[in-house]
């Protein structure tokens, strides 16, 4: 799966948990999910669970510890599906 395809599938998941006061246009590949997009830690778990369903993968604690940005998410997904 290409980075573009993963990004396109990831975007609606991120949008689902974006706080109302954060513009969806601010989402960039290097956006920090918690610091910049303001997704709280409880919703970050929901993002991860939705990613698992969407890409049919299973993530571990060690994966989540590396997850800061959209690009990190894409890298983790790529590693898991390859």
């Amino acid at each position, binding site marked *: 799966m290409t980075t573009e395809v993963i990004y396109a599938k990831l975007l609606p998941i991120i949008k689902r948990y974006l706080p109302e006061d954060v513009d969806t246009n601010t989402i960039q590949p290097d956006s920090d999910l918690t610091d910049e997009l303001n997704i709280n*830690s*409880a919703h970050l*778990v929901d993002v991860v*669970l939705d990613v698992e369903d969407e890409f049919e993968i299973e993530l571990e*604690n060690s994966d989540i510890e590396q997850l800061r940005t959209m690009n990190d998410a894409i890298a983790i997904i790529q590693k898991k599906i390859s």
Partner: protein
Amino acid sequence: MKPEQIQNELPYAKPFLFVDKLEHVDENGARGHYTFPESSFFYEGHFPEYKITPGVILTECMAQIGVVALGIYIYNLEFPGARIRMVDAADIDVSIALAETHIDFKKPVFPNEKVTVISTKEYYRFNKLKCKVEMRKENGDLACRGFISGVIIPQSRRG
């Protein structure tokens, strides 16, 4: 952990403890009951002329029995001896925070009514516990139901 042990570990105290007895806890859910005394502080204002248990208090009762008690049980499966401690916490101890609630209120709960809370685990992943919860009156009527989730925060991760 046995239900009695978990009940002793609940971090609440009067007038904000809404658990009389934790009846059953296993990794899939929890069950317990509480009777709202007519002397409870909130009835003075909710409402002065008509005492009715506030929805936020029903939600809190469901969270204490259904989510916090279950969270203590589940966390102890992996980390035996971990307790909820905000102060004087050991490395193994945790704090717990409410994350989300979505509750539908069906029937009012009046003073001196006994309610039973039943929770069913939806998932426990990455320290987040999401539960389906319901509250039944003594006659079996549904008082309220919905979803509550909370997060367990290990002390070692606190800044």
